[in-house]
């Protein structure tokens, strides 16, 4: 009888300990690893933004080389979704259900992100730093989704404010990509100009497939625009500026953070990008550099960016990889998560990560200051992250002249 009692007790102990272990173990976490997922286009028309995921990868490897986070290494799983939402969904489900991710980071594009947002939120899986400045990430806010990319609305507001108040322009026009990105730029510009009693003199949509920009330039020329906002991709900036120059239409070009890789832009426009004013979300600190001074992303004075260039890019990036804004942004979007993971300590859970993310106040790495707040279902600002941008101007030698300090932009809710 005693013998059976020992067996039963042993069995029950194993079961109870096993259950206790299961209850404590968080998906995507082991004693030595934290599994993080990410998608990004490595092929297809949006492939230039594939550098974001590769930047994150190099950053994680740098952290692992420094010893990881509380004894655990970051295991980065990223896949090519080709900017195709169906592939994004398939890839996320596969990684989540086959391997089990603790959290997801970045992920390029509004459409791919929207395809998986509900899937991740329904399962209470944290997703930090989507690589697109879309209002969809914070309106309505989700407990497990933290935005770090400043909204495109803010870029347009600051650019218009500068064009009107500093440059004294009255005729401002916009070329906007016919999607969420471009339409946010359009809305931000309309709202900002209305404050000065102005309206956009031309609002010209650009479809992703458009290659011939002559009709667009004709409309701008007829509108007598003094400044043209370009809320389009880098390729369309090159086409619009090139066609404009050929048709002798050369306004003050202004563009968003999306086209902020100055060396790339200078190369593809054959120097035509010089003089363009751009909104920027980081990679330099205008407060430290000083207004009117010039900064070079390839020889940055920013101490954190310099470190990433030396310790992450030079050691872990592929030989043919190019150091630039897009690659570095892959690190910037996820810096707050690394900070929160460090603050979580060894006892890591998703809820604890969320709690630590919510405690982040004025955190600054290579981007602007990032802050979050405890979750409130009707307050987008608790998940907005970075609300400041600054303006710079591309110089003829592919550097950036600082035009403003960090400027806080106003959040405009959807439909208002």
């Amino acid at each position, binding site marked *: 009888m005693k013998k059976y009692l020992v067996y039963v007790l042993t069995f029950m102990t194993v079961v109870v300990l096993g259950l206790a272990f299961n209850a404590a173990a968080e998906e995507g976490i082991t004693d030595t690893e934290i599994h993080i997922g990410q998608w990004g286009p490595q092929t297809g028309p949006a*492939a230039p933004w594939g550098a974001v995921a590769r930047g994150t990868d190099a950053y994680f490897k740098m952290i692992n080389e420094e010893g990881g986070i509380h004894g655990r290494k970051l295991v980065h799983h990223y896949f090519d979704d080709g900017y195709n939402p169906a592939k994004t969904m398939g890839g996320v489900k596969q990684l989540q259900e086959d391997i089990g991710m603790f959290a997801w980071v970045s992920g390029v594009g509004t459409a791919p992100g929207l395809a998986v947002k509900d899937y991740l939120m329904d399962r209470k899986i944290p997703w930090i730093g989507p690589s697109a400045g879309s209002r969809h990430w914070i309106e309505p806010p989700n407990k497990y989704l933290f935005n770090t990319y400043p909204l495109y609305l803010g870029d347009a507001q600051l650019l218009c404010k500068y064009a009107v108040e500093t440059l004294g322009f009255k005729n401002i026009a916009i070329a906007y990509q016919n999607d969420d990105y471009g339409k946010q730029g359009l809305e931000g510009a309309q709202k900002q100009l209305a404050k000065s009693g102005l309206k956009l003199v031309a609002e010209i949509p650009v479809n992703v497939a458009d290659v011939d920009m002559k009709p667009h330039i004709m409309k701008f020329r007829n509108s007598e625009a003094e400044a043209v906002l370009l809320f389009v991709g880098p390729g369309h900036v090159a086409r619009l500026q090139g066609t404009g120059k050929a048709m002798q239409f050369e306004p003050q070009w202004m563009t968003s953070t999306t086209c902020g890789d100055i060396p790339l832009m200078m190369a593809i426009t054959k120097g035509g990008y010089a003089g363009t004013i751009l909104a920027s979300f980081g990679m330099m600190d205008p407060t430290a550099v000083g207004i009117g001074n010039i900064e070079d992303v390839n020889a940055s004075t920013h101490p954190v960016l310099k470190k990433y260039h030396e310790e992450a890019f030079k050691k872990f990036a592929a030989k043919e990889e190019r150091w630039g804004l897009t690659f570095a942004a892959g690190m910037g979007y996820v810096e707050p998560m690394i900070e929160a993971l460090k603050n979580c300590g060894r006892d890591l859970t998703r809820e604890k990560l969320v709690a630590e993310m919510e405690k982040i106040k004025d955190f600054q790495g290579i981007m602007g200051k990032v802050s979050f707040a405890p979750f409130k279902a009707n307050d987008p600002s608790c998940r907005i992250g970075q609300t400041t941008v600054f303006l710079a101007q591309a110089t003829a030698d592919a550097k950036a002249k600082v035009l403003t300090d960090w400027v806080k932009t106003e959040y405009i809710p959807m439909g208002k």
Partner: protein
Amino acid sequence: MVDFLQMVLSGIAVGSSYALMGLGMVLIYKASEVPNFVQGEMALLPVFIAFMLLSTYNIPYYIAFPATLIFAFILGCFLEFAILRRAKEPNILGLIIITIGMEMMLLGFVSWKFGADQRAMPFPISTYDSIIIGDVFISSLDLLTLVVALVIMLTLFLFFRFSRMGVAMKATQMNENAAALMGIKTKQIRMVTWGISAVVGCVAGLLAAPVLVEPYMMWGPMLKGFAGAVVGGMTSLPGAVFGAYIVGIVEHLFGGYISIEFKSVVAFAIIVIVLCIKPSGLFARHYVKKV
């Protein structure tokens, strides 16, 4: 009036690039009876080769461009010889699938080998210069494209009319069995046709590259060239040219006067209308199936 003239001139300029792609497609359609969806990538790979020769190896234009055209010719011949010819008794659908497969292979190769970053190719003339006639502008590059397109059209016309090879090609296209009985090496002719088509497409690619080089750069011109060829008639070389110019001009007028948002899709609306009214295309003789 100035706007109207500007739009027509811009339409003709962009139509020249479509015309070159359309010509390439019609050449192959007449030889192999297949709409060639690898036409864009047959230009894309040589363009990246030219970019590499010019930017990485600093080879002068007068060597890099002819070398690129020779490469394009060999590539076209290779695709016909190594892949298309190997298809066993394929039907039209099978051939189309093969060209789509080749398109994906070449596009994948270019993306893998050269990366996805956008670039601008060095070119002997500036993409920013323009010529002003009255109040109407035409960029130097557009003017060059127009002239080159006209020269290629004239050369093709003379080639098919007066050269031995050209006449053999026409004979093969008209009736392959009869041509073979007359001693024409029809397989060789078909292969050379693919080579010439690749060269014509490559010229269009080289003229587009000074603005932007990226893996998907030839997709738009290929579709517009295809639209032009369908409008003009897939069996008519002059038809493809006229069709392409019609697409270019209508696209610009539509963008200027009706909706710039839907400018890109107007070419495909034209295809639908033409196919409903005259299925063989505006300039082709009535469709006759070879048996």
